[in-house]
């Protein structure tokens, strides 16, 4: 065991001391928040500096009282034809709004003339201005006070409780579901990236012929295990650094540019009732975050992460030992990627829609798909027996694949220049020690 530890240590140091590890570990988490930061920044700048667009309007029914922060409405007193000509000539004017005499209960015939195609956003903004004005007119007609109207708005937050288990638990767990699905996706990426690294490392050892020296000192199984576990420790470290960096940086970016300022604006514009509703929402959000069973999720994540990584890591190791170059490895990648792809697509099709359906349940129990599928299901609540069955099978699956992989590995690493196919792998597997 001491030697396995030596190999783990060596693998760990080899990877962590590389510049590429440092670059990937620091840069990748910086990339997402910095892209977001740039986008937010550009958007904010644009919003602040952009001059109001000038829209001329013809209002035949004399009903329009423009009130907009985004546009400057200018009343046009000429005829429609003249105004159109003017629009074409005057570069300052952005568009021409034509409002005929309308029945406010059934407004028809309002037109917007522009010199270029306008974006859906702008169109929506103009629509909104008109709709608000018509709403005001209607309120006047029906003699409705705005305060009364606002007080009609009620916010209900539905609290749902799952009573199927022994303990009644709140099942409204959108946040947990999100965290679970994200964890499933991360797991998928991770298994792939690090599995490929195991494979590459083994191919390197094999082609550089150093493997013969090593296996004269340690058993091939110890070497394989040390390699897989060594990379797992690198992966965990990188992962933890990423999570810490991404959460802090994203937090910083959001609080600096985005959410904070826009929320304040929104709040300041809102009526007291709306503000109360908003506060209620924020409180709900906090309550939900508090309710996420982080320990439960993290423990399960770590378990399924390690289990899934080890199952696939062993398979990647077997493939790496069998071939002489990464290109040759391609032919064996299909059976490895297939169950992962099934789990990945299952996550988005079956599990999110119907987490307790038979397909979802099976996906989360079969060892090859369970690491990804179970993370997706956890948020919806998983019966304890299913969780335990899945974990036991995952451990069993890991032992099985490692055993099979080790039998192929011990022969494969000493073979050079052999044309390898599945039949050859089977022969190696059957070979006596």
């Amino acid at each position, binding site marked *: 065991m001491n030697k396995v530890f030596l190999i783990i240590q060596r693998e760990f140091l*080899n990877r962590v001391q590389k510049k590429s590890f440092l670059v990937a570990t620091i840069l990748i988490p910086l990339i997402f928040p910095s892209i977001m930061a740039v986008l937010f920044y550009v958007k904010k700048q644009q919003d602040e500096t952009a001059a109001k667009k000038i829209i001329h309007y013809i209002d035949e029914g004399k009903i329009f009282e423009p009130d907009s922060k985004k546009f400057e409405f200018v009343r046009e007193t000429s005829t429609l034809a003249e105004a159109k000509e003017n629009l074409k000539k005057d570069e300052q004017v952005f568009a021409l709004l034509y409002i005929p005499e309308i029945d406010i209960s059934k407004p028809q015939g309002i037109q917007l003339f522009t010199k270029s195609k306008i974006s859906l956003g702008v169109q929506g903004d103009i629509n909104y201005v008109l709709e608000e004005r018509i709403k005001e007119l209607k309120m006047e007609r029906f003699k409705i006070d705005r305060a009364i109207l606002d007080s009609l708005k009620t916010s209900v937050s539905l609290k749902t409780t799952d009573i199927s288990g022994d303990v009644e638990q709140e099942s409204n767990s959108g946040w947990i579901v999100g965290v679970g699905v994200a964890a499933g996706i991360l797991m998928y990426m991770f298994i792939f990236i690090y599995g490929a690294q195991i494979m590459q490392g083994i191919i390197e050892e094999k082609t*550089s*012929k150093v493997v013969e*020296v090593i296996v004269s*000192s*340690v058993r091939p199984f110890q070497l394989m295990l040390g390699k897989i576990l060594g990379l797992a420790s690198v992966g965990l470290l990188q992962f933890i650094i990423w999570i810490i960096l991404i959460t802090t940086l994203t937090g910083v970016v959001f609080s600096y540019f985005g959410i904070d300022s826009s929320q304040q604006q929104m709040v300041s514009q809102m009526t007291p009732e709306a503000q109360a509703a908003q506060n209620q929402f924020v409180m709900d959000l906090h309550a939900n975050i508090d309710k996420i069973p982080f320990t439960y999720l993290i423990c399960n994540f770590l378990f399924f992460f390690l289990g899934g990584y080890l199952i696939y890591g062993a398979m990647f190791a077997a493939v790496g030992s069998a071939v002489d170059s990464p290109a040759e490895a391609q032919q064996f990648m299909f059976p490895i990627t297939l169950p992962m792809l099934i789990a990945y697509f299952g996550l988005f099709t079956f599990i999110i829609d119907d987490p307790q359906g038979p397909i979802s349940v099976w996906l989360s129990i079969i060892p090859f798909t369970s690491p990804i599928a179970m993370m997706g299901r956890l948020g919806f609540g998983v019966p304890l027996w299913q969780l335990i069955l899945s974990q036991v099978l995952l451990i069993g699956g890991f032992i099985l694949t490692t055993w099979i992989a080790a039998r192929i590995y011990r022969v494969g690493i*000493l073979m050079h220049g052999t044309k390898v196919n599945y039949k050859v792998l089977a022969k190696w597997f059957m070979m006596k020690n």
Partner: protein
Amino acid sequence: MEALIATNVTKHYANHVALNDVSINIPSHSIYGLLGPNGAGKTTLIRIINQIINADKGQISIFGEPLQAKHIGVIGYLPEERGLYKKLKVGEQLVYLAQLKGLSKKEATERSKAWIKKFEVTDWWTKKVEDLSKGMAQKVQFISTVMHEPKLIILDEPFSGFDPVNAQIITKEILELKEKGCTVIFSTHRMETVEDLCDHIALINRSEKILEGSKKQVKEKYRSNTYRVEHTGTFALNQNGFTLLDQKKLEDNVYQSEIQISSGSANHLIRTLTDYTEIHSFTEKIPTMSEIFISLVKGGTHE
């Protein structure tokens, strides 16, 4: 005591026999040549001794004990296919490989530094292996083979890839190790090495051992009682018990003849020859290892 005894070792692969009932005795403190053409089964035997693969049948005992996992630290192995971690620095590499053989980190560091110093290549310590020349990398590999002070050193084609100067250095190291009490197994098909260094040899051909013994014994066994004589003038030999195999001109009036004795002694031959000619030199024609090797291997393939 024997350093290593292999008894009736057999190893089958899927469609051929790699070793068939091979038994060898390797005496302690000897340099033992394991000879044979490519594909004869030398590497398989070496891998079995290194516990990289297991034999199907047969026993191996090392320094009187059955071969077990704990003997890994007693053996130093230089494979024919040399290999080191390309991206690893020489120092880290040596320390790591020695640690895998069971040395503590401190010991491993001290010894690798000492060896690096001995080979006068201290500045390699922080160099990556991929930046070294082939000969340099070979030296590093040799250090890694002997650094844990193994009692049994197995060198598979140790001189391939070395220039004469470095081969000289390595030869000196090997002899020094033997002086210190190590047993060295040489696996090679290069006969000059055997002629110079080995005390004992075994010849493996087509998965079977066909010859074993000390170099002297083997040569004794394959001497043909033939003598080489340099003499003045030519003659024809008409004597019972002596056969003139060959006679060729060396210079002006000096000739060389090869004469085989079927009955009688060398002294008898000399006495007889003095009647025919003036003798300049008289030596026994002893077969070289190379000649023995070729005659045996060829004989084997003709069966």
